[in-house]
């Protein structure tokens, strides 16, 4: 299983929770060739879901053009300090990862 995500969720003025996520993933495009000339197969995160309580606050789909170790920023209303924000991703090989953070 891959390394944990780093998630930071902060409550800002106006009741908006700002979430920053750093995912550890190679994000291989499938176009690159290795030293022997063989194409490196694509391996990238496809879908990301962020939830706050039972509510989905963001759904994202990534293509292979997103940089290695993807970063994602977004913000949503309705969060409170101490609430949990959960972020999950799944990649094109079926690997999954889910991590959560507490809103500060």
């Amino acid at each position, binding site marked *: 299983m891959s390394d944990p995500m780093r998630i930071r969720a902060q409550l800002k003025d106006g009741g908006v929770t700002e979430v920053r996520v750093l995912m550890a993933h190679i994000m291989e495009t499938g176009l690159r060739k290795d030293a022997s000339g063989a194409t490196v197969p694509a391996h990238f995160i496809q879908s990301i879901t962020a939830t706050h309580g039972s509510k989905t606050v963001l759904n994202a789909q990534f293509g292979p053009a*997103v940089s290695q170790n993807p970063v994602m920023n977004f913000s949503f209303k309705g969060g409170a300090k101490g609430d949990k924000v959960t972020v999950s991703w799944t990649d094109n090989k079926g690997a999954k990862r889910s991590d959560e953070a507490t809103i500060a």
Partner: protein
Amino acid sequence: MNLQRRTTLKTGGSLALIAAAVSAGVLPTSAFAQWNKNAFDAKNLNDVVKAMGGATAEKSNDIAITAPDIAENGAVVPIAVASKLANVESIAILVEKNPNSLAATFDIPAGTEPNVGTRVKMGQSSNVHAVVKAGGKYYVATKEVKVTLGGCGG
């Protein structure tokens, strides 16, 4: 729980661990939307908009793309998109001259700000498009980003 623990121990691999976690309800299973392969395979702006279910994208001044004018490293180009349009449903980031234009899409449910950011790879200097779906219509804004070192390839 004990049963799952047994199978996990037996098969060992990380996949079994995940399967056990899913069946135990630790990981959400149904939350992921189907990956839109057609849109990610499309080569240009119009094809991407069509693959996402629209006809054409209208130019809009209410979409702001925050990206560097000149990116030194094409492998990590920070792109942020903010929209002032009402009822934003989704935001997509496209890089025109990449092998496949579409880099990422974000679905914005009610309560989430139409303001997202990520980092993308750019093979060469190119226009970056932000396509925003708002109130059932598609809008687009464009910004040119010059790349001094391409992000595709070793």
